[in-house]
Structures are given as C-alpha cells and as structure tokens.
C-alpha cells in the first residue's frame, strides 16, 4: 500500500471519532484525528450519566480519550479544521489548519495557574453558557490534550494590549503570544466524518419561552447542571435564583416530529434521555415533582422500557400524554405555568413548575455545511451527511473514500453504544476499502 493508503483521517473527536480512530489504529493504520475544539471528547463529555446503566459518562469516555492521545499510531490535531481537499480514495491530500492556541504545546503541563490568574470571565461553551470559563482556559478538567488555549477574542492582550498575567505566572514559559496558525498537508487514503450534532434552537417557538424565561432549559443545559463537574457542582439549581426546583417538567418533541422548522423526523434519543434525567433528578432529591409531557414514549431497545417502567414504580416520575401548548412565566417567582390538555380526562388546565426542560430536536452541526463544500460531499435536506445508499451504504457519503458515522449522519436509535457501533462498522469499512486497493 502506498503511504497515503495506510493513513486515515477522522474529522471530529467525539465518541464516534475516538472509537473509529482506535479501531483503525489498532489494526495498523495511522490515524489523523482532527478536532475543531481545544479538546477531544465531544457531547459525551458534557453528559452526566449514560442510560440505562447510569454509568458516569466522562468516566467511561476519558480512558478512551487518553488511549487516543497515547496511541503511537494516532496523531491528534486539536483546535484544527479541515480547509481543503484534493485527490480521490487512496490518495487524498487534505489541508488542515491548526489554529494558534498561543501556547507552546511542548511546554504546557496543564497546571492551571494561568487560568486561575486570568481576570477575564467568559460564558463557557462546554457548560452551555450556564457557567464561566476564562480567556485562557481548558474546556473541562479531563481535556485531552491537557493544555490550555487562549481565546484571542476575549484575551485582554489581544483586544486591548494589556494584562499578560498568564505569561507572568507561567512557570513553564509556555505562553507564546506570537504564535501563528499552521497549515499542514496530510496524505490519507480515506476520511471518516464524525462531527456529531447541535441542538435545535427552541427560541424560535415563542410559546415555549426558551431564551426568554430563565428557567426554561434544553436537555444539554440540564445535563451540565446535573453533572458534578458542571457550573453548580452537580446541584440542581435553577438559573433565576440558584434555588433547587421543587418541580420539574420535561417537554418532549420540541422541534422534532414537527413540519414547521425542518425537523419532521423523530430525534430518537430524547425520550430516553428524558427518562434518564428524570430518574437522576429523583435520585438527587426524591421529593421533587417530576413530570414528563410526551406524545409517544419511544424507548425502544433492550433495557429501556424496563428503565421507563422503573422510573414510574421506583422513582415516582409522572407521565402525561400531552404536548403543552403554552408556557407562561410568573415574573415574581420565575416559575413556569404550563398549559396542557390532560388527554385522559380531556381537561385543559395549567400546572406550575419551577423548572422546565425542553427535549429539543437533534440538528445537524453547522460545520457540516462548510465541510460538505470542502469535501465535495452531499448533505441531506436536514443538513446531515447524505448516505450513498440509505439501505446498504449508510456510512458511505456521495464521494468514494469519504465516510460518515455517528450523529452527523442523522439521529438513529441514538445512544452512545450505537455511535460506538457505527464507528467500528465504519472503521471496518474503511479498512476493507483501503486494503482492497493494494
């Protein structure tokens, strides 16, 4: 095999990207894992627990992240993006742009002193805007690679030519304000895209109050509040007053199964994570009133219906088959008045909740648009990667040699094992294609 053919690029360092990288590296391929954020880990790092086993998400993820970092055949390019592509299967030439961290990667030991001293606080993307990070930061404690990054749009040195406190206190002399972006040309035989997903922005539905009312959150925001590494150290407190909510409502199908906003499909994962989070809340504080407003409870697969049943019998989670029509805020308390029809009693009424969590549709990550243009692949009408054959070739994109796995090809049954399974299947596919080119 020519040099290029033994090399594979994986774009996206979430669980799918990590799994595909490990599978291919273990088979003897050299993997170039490109991730746009400063660390690999993706959405799974943001989750508190995974269902239905209720394992700590980061605890199962970080060993794999470290394995990636240490693997002799995996080259990590974090804080980097794919900017150009030439060639064809077996012989791709990919241009990768490494954005400047303004940190000498060889010197930074991840001690965190600079972060402590930095005076600038910025809403943390990792914490979904519910917590703060600094202008010099590590997205989360288990970041891989374990080093900081300077955000030039917020750093006082870059914006106002003052400060430089980080440089003053760094004992490793790792700060390098003069660092430039670096462009690399990588020769690879195949490319796997694993760019994950974004969440539908529910503020486009005014009747639900997302974006307007402080105590209306989406699923990922709730995960960050429940997570021990989150902005509230795992205390479920509501954004408006930092008090623990006595009642929480989950609203399913927000954006999904809806012809109006571009997500007419079922997002597959939301009923499952709502049940999981409902149980988590009950485990935190058993006397919290937790209601899930659902249309259909889609918890398919081994273990899930049982989990949903236990949530009712053991934890007392309430289920109401109804999609609420309106949410109104009581401005004095920040509580939400949820108007719905109790479809069993055929009665329209309202119930006050202290916190509302919207299970929003799974959306294609915005990066897919730009990436599709660079790679020459087609996207489906929802922005997910279009499969060459929806039945027998779901991991194949419309360009030979380029594949997709995980959420970026669309939500399927959706949970973490599913993404892992897809990643392994895609890795096998790539290995098959590349070895057959010999």
């Amino acid at each position: 095999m020519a040099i290029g053919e033994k090399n594979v690029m994986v774009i996206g360092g979430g669980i799918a990207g990590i799994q595909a990288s490990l599978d291919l590296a273990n088979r003897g391929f050299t993997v170039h894992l490109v991730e746009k954020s400063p660390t690999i880990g993706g959405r799974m790092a943001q989750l508190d627990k995974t269902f239905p086993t209720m394992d700590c998400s980061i605890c199962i993820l970080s060993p794999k992240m470290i394995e990636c970092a240490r693997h002799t055949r995996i080259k990590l390019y974090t804080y980097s993006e794919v900017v150009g592509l030439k060639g064809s299967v077996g012989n791709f030439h990919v241009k990768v742009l490494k954005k400047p961290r303004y940190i000498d990667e060889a010197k930074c030991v991840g001690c965190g002193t600079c972060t402590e001293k930095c005076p600038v606080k910025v809403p943390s993307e990792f914490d979904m805007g519910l917590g703060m990070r600094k202008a010099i930061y590590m997205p989360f404690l288990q970041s891989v690679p374990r080093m900081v990054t300077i955000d030039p749009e917020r750093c006082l040195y870059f914006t106002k030519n003052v400060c430089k406190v980080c440089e003053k206190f760094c004992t490793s002399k790792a700060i390098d304000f003069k660092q430039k972006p670096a462009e690399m040309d990588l020769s690879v035989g195949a490319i796997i895209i694993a760019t994950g997903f974004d969440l539908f922005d529910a503020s486009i539905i005014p009747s639900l109050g997302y974006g307007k009312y402080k105590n209306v959150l989406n699923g990922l925001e709730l995960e960050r509040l429940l997570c021990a590494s989150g902005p509230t150290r795992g205390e479920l407190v509501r954004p408006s007053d930092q008090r623990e909510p006595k009642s929480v409502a989950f609203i399913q199908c927000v954006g999904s199964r809806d012809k109006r906003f571009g997500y007419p499909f079922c997002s597959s994962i939301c009923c499952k994570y709502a049940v999981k989070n409902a149980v988590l809340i009950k485990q935190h504080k058993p006397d919290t009133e937790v209601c899930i407003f659902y249309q259909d409870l889609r918890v398919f697969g081994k273990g899930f219906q049982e989990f949903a049943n236990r949530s009712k019998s053991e934890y007392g989670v309430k289920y109401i088959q109804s999609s609420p029509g309106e949410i109104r805020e009581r401005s004095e308390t920040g509580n939400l008045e949820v108007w719905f029809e109790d479809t069993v009693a055929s009665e329209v009424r309202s119930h006050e909740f202290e916190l509302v969590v919207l299970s929003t549709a799974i959306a294609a990550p915005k990066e897919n648009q730009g990436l599709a243009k660079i790679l020459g692949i087609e996207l489906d009408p929802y922005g997910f990667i279009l499969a060459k054959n929806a039945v027998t070739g779901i991991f194949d994109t419309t360009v030979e040699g380029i594949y997709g796995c995980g959420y970026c090809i669309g939500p399927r049954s959706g949970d973490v094992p599913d993404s892992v399974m897809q990643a392994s299947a895609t890795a096998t596919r790539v290995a098959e294609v590349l070895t057959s080119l010999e």
Partner: protein
Amino acid sequence: MKYSFYIGCLIPAMEPGYESITRKVLPSLGLELEDIKGANCCAPFSIQSLDYYGWLVLAARNICLAEKMGHDMLAICDDCFESFTAANELLKKDKEARDKVNALLSDIGEEFKGLIEVKHVLEVLHEDIDLIKMNLRNPLDKLRVAAHPGCHLVRPKAIHQRIRLGFDVMDDLVTAIGAKAIDYPQKDMCCGGPLRGVNDEISRRISREKLKALKAAGVDCVATVCPFCFRQLDLGQVEVKRYFKEDYSLPVTHYMELLGKAIGLKFTESELADHKVPVERILG
C-alpha cells in the same frame, strides 16, 4: 402610494370616528386612499363558517373591484384582511377553485385575475416606518402601550408564506411614535370577539382574561388595529364590569389614533365618541 380602500361594514356603521381619523392620518403620511365603490361584505370568519364558495365569491368580488382600480387593496380591519388575503392567495394558487369562483362571478360580469395584493394598514405603515419618524411632531414619551394586533392579522395560514406579521411589527410602530411597547405573556391571545352572538358568556370570559393580563402588564393604554378587537376590549369592559364586578378602566385606542396624535393631528370630540372607556388622558 395609492390604495384601493376597503372600509368594511362595522367601521362605517359603528366606528365612524375611527374612519374619520384614518382618513386624516393616512393621507398626511402620503398614503392615498381611493374608496372601493359598491363593495360588498368581506365574508369574515363567521360567514366562512357557513359556506366555502359563498366566502370565496364574496371576497373575490371585492378583489375584482380593486383589480379594476389598479391598486393593491388596503384593509383597516383584521377580519377583512384575513378573508381577503386567504381568498386572494388561494385563488391565485388553486386553479380548480379559481375556475369555480370565476364561473359564479361571471353571473355578475366579474372575473378574478390575481393581479393585486391585499395589505393591512399595519404592514403598509411598517414598510414605510421612516415616514412616521420623519413626521413625528409630538412623540408620545413615557406612554406605556400594549399592542394587540389581533389573531386574524398575525395567524392566518395564507400569510405565513408571504410575510409573517409578527407582534414585533406592531411594537416597532409603537416605538416609532415615541411610546414604549410593553410585552406581556398573553399578547397573542384572542380578544374573544368571534363568539359574540354565539356564546356571549365564553366571549366575555375571554375578554376578561385578556383585560386582566393587560392590566397586570401595567400599561397606560392598549393599541388595536381591528374594529372588532377594539369593540370587544373597549365596550367589553362595560360588560366585564357588569358580569364580573371588575373595573379595569383601561383606555383602548386604535393605533391610528396614537399615530395621529404623534404626527400632530388633533381630534374632535365626535371623532373620539366611539370610546366607552375615556381616552382624554391619552388622546386629549
């Protein structure tokens, strides 16, 4: 800009003050109004409930008259606007319906051609919002206004494709005359007017809920752009007082009146006579 002006039947009969003010305000902003002569009922939702083709031919005949005049139609009532826009968009798109309607129209020598647009005065004013700002002589500083655009302005399906007349449009117009547009949770709620004559009890309970929300928002007045909504919220307060013993004393104005005052016009007593809740404080 010239418009085929459709006045409807409620306004001439019951709110001539609103008509008089409209006929002063719009021309002073450069909007020329040419009355549609010989217009018939627009076929509002109540008539639409009775018969589909009955609605379409009634609406279509008026559109034909406007087409012959050669200008877009201007409506100052939400119900008229809804009926015409829905009919206009439908007849433009659906050939089968158009053929059937034209067959009926031919009995009176008319033909729907799909040549014009139907506009509500709110969208016309918003399109030329700078005109208002330029003519602002008397900004309504510190006036807290709650906008009530009305259901048939913001929600008919027919306008979803064209423009989505959001509540922001009306808020923009309130801000443009120097007043403060106050947000409140039930802004998109119906006034309850359509159930008048069918079930007055539910109708007044709905207007009461709306009035309660408006009062709770702490506003100086409510602005409407539909004579039905106006009547329901203004005259409706008399009823709410009688049946629920609740006195809101909330001035309800037509946006046109606030606009008129802001551009320096003065109104006569008889022009403001339609108001049941006194408005001297706001418009005097």
